[in-house]
């Protein structure tokens, strides 16, 4: 195969996309001895990764409807606390039942969590209110689960920091304008450097498309298609830390059913719709109103809290493009596409789907595929390697 024949002493992987997945992959491959270059058109995590509410999933949200996701979450939750110590507000979370209908979800929730290995503790309304006095006093019951809060930018930044100090080239403000494709072989990318305004080419043995909801656009540069639907949701930040624990509504996934504390703010999320252009999301006013309405069912103080910000973030949902518009039914697992197998195009891999909590797991899966393609035997070491602190990313 041409790509391998022209390889120098170390194989070179070019990662397109500086979100959590790209950063975790850069770190994983670097530990396996592979030369890594990562290019990101803006600041790292400026796509979807930095924008989420900062929930470190216990997986309980998926324990009833999406067991695969739930198990991935609780495993990664445990690993991340180990490799990123001091990076989480480790206060656990609550699933709170407000209505009788919610109470019907209690048994399935407990069973689902038990099946997925997610520890739970059932609390009476009084017990819950002692832990979180601002909860809706009409709550009927609560379940405590090992949620936590992460800083959506700073936690992934630790992966970037470690990769960079391990020798990976991390280049922000470098935008991929096209891929170098010839004869069904991808051999690199054409990039525009926004720092100098100059263009250039970067050659690599494998190019990885880790661009989240932009995956389809990058894949098209190689002449292949990936079934990614950008699915944004609205989030609302309010002044005031209304809870210390993460507060979830005890029901099947719906709008505005989570309140996540972050420093002195409370983040209410989220909603869901699908778009074609991940750069044009909008912030629908009625969705913002719904955040206030649903959020205040969990914590009444949401209704009168001072507005700080309202924004949208696009999830990369895997599914075929002719599925229903709300986007929530699609699977939240992550997938790696080796385009040699799916489309006959060599040297190009797409990793997509997933959520903030599973970045390391996604990277492990993708790195395994890449090593197999390169004919390299190297074990994943990311489960137990403690990461450098986030400020090391900016150290010379």
């Amino acid at each position, binding site marked *: 195969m041409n790509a391998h024949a022209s390889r120098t002493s170390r194989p070179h992987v070019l990662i397109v996309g500086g979100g959590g997945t790209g950063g975790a992959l850069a770190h994983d491959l670097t530990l396996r001895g592979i030369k890594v270059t990562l290019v990101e058109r803006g600041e790292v995590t400026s796509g979807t990764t930095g924008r989420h509410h900062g929930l470190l999933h216990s997986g309980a949200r998926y324990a009833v409807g999406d067991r695969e996701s739930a198990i991935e979450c609780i495993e990664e939750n445990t690993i991340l606390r180990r490799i990123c110590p001091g990076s989480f507000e*480790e206060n656990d979370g609550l699933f709170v039942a407000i209505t009788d209908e919610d109470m019907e979800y209690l048994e399935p929730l407990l069973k689902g969590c038990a099946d997925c290995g997610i520890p739970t503790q059932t609390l009476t309304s009084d017990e819950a209110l002692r832990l979180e006095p601002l909860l809706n006093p009409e709550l009927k019951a609560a379940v405590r689960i090992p949620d936590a809060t992460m800083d959506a*930018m700073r936690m992934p930044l630790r992966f970037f920091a470690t990769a960079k100090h391990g020798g990976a080239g991390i280049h922000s403000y470098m935008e991929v304008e096209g891929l170098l494709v010839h004869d069904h072989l991808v051999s690199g990318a054409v990039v525009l450097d*926004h720092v100098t305004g100059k263009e250039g080419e970067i050659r690599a043995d494998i190019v990885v498309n880790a661009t989240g909801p932009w995956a389809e656009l990058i894949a098209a540069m190689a002449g292949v298609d990936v079934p990614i639907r950008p699915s944004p949701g609205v989030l609302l930040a309010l002044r005031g830390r209304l809870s*210390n624990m993460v507060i979830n509504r005890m029901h099947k996934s719906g709008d505005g059913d989570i309140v996540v504390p972050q420093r*002195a703010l409370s983040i209410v999320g989220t909603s869901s719709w699908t778009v074609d252009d991940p750069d044009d999301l909008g912030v629908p006013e009625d969705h913002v109103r719904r955040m206030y309405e649903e959020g205040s069912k969990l914590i009444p103080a949401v209704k009168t809290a001072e507005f700080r*910000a309202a924004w949208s973030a696009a999830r990369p949902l895997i599914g075929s493009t002719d599925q229903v518009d709300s986007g929530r039914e699609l699977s939240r697992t992550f997938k790696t596409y080796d385009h040699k197998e799916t489309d006959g195009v060599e040297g190009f891999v797409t990793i997509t789907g997933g959520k903030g909590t599973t970045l390391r797991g996604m990277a492990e899966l993708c790195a395994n595929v890449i090593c197999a393609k390169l004919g390299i035997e190297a074990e994943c070491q990311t489960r137990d390697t403690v990461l450098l602190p986030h*400020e090391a990313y900016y150290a010379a």
Partner: protein
Amino acid sequence: METIEETATAATEATETRRFRVFRFKRGDRGPHLDEFDVPVTARTTLFDAMRWIQFNRDPSLALRHSCLHASCGTCGVRANGREVLMCVTAVHDLGREITVEPVANIPVLTDLVVDMTEFYARFHEAHPLVRESGFDLGAEVPEGLATYQRYEDCIECGLCLSACPVVATTDRYVGPMALAWAQRILEEPRDEDVLGVRDWADDPDGAWRCHAAFECTEACPSNVNPAARIMQLRGTLVGPSLTGREMRG
């Protein structure tokens, strides 16, 4: 007949145009210049929205720094009409008819509105614990198994205080408000850090003693760190043992 909802929506959709003068600089340019753009805005448009609009509709080479879009990551700091703000939570409506947007001061510019934060982070003492005791007790009990409720330090490392400080404008040797505020937080809540080391680091002519109480940092801070007050408390802590005879314990 319009419902209240429709009127409200119409009000936020009413667009007008504001003129933005944006600082531009690419490496290799002889010097920076300002580019003018007329941008359609509504009552809800933030400075980030406006810059993004320019990036996607007028000039894709405009480099912007952002991540969380809700004043949590601190990456979108700029100066708008000379005042330090975070783009994502600043309404264009509050800025005036003509708006000059420049990068923050006192940190080297990487490109356009983006600064290179390497020198910013280099100013801190190496002790940099991110998580603290919550302090938002709300009269609550802590769940069984947890020692205390935790949260992140208020400081989001945005650099607005460093940009606003008139002393930093005259010397790069002064570590800056955020570095000293962070040190004071360690003295208040040690979390196993080297407290005496931090104290000695702060007790320096270019440390706590370089501040001249202009309080610009506290004005600029978007996250209630109140760095100036922290620096004054730090000074009190540094001077205390000499006055009271009680040594600080490590």
